């Protein structure tokens, strides 16, 4: 249906679905770009390397039907986007919970 844009569309969907967490619940992830970078950049690098290794060791492979075919350093573009988008969505979820639940039970 979405063809080669399918994987990228899924990533766009993740960003869209979690956007209200920032805008409505005031998660404060996009508004703290330095802190966001400090959390996401090391994860992006480490997991892109894991992906690079796993592709070379043939642990997994990607369908040419549902991906753009664009690669950077031997890693599909979609995967690089994944390692930015998914950690970001995770932070938005965590921050939304922090906003909604009092810190009473934690230190």
């Amino acid at each position: 249906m979405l063809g080669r844009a399918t994987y990228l569309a899924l990533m766009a969907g993740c960003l869209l679905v979690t956007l209200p967490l920032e805008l409505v619940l005031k998660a404060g992830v996009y508004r703290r770009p330095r802190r966001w970078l400090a959390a996401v950049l090391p994860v992006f690098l480490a997991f892109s390397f894991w992906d690079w290794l796993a592709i070379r060791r043939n642990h997994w492979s990607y369908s040419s039907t549902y991906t753009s075919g664009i690669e950077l350093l031997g890693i599909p573009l979609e995967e690089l986007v994944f390692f930015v988008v998914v950690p970001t969505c995770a932070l938005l979820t965590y921050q939304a919970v922090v906003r909604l639940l009092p810190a009473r039970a934690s230190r």
Partner: protein
Amino acid sequence: MIREYTLAAAAGVALTVLLELLILRTGLFRDPRYWVALAVIAAFQLLVNGVLTCPPIVSYDPAEILGPRIVCAPVEDLGFGFAMVTTTIALWRRAGSAPGER
């Protein structure tokens, strides 16, 4: 035969736990808000994993995984996701305790 993804996923989980407990030490695992967030994230992970592995967009070499699958994705993916999400949140908390950050 060593199932490499199984081994890598287990190592990823172990390294993540050690990173938090020994180096970052943000108290993450004692904070109920982390576990609530992890449960919500895990639910959405199953959804995203399903879209990625059911068509499939991503295929796995059966020789490198144990075999059991959850919504099409190998169980190893849960370890991969836990490692990625937990490391991100731990680094976020760590960065938040730096001067000038709220």
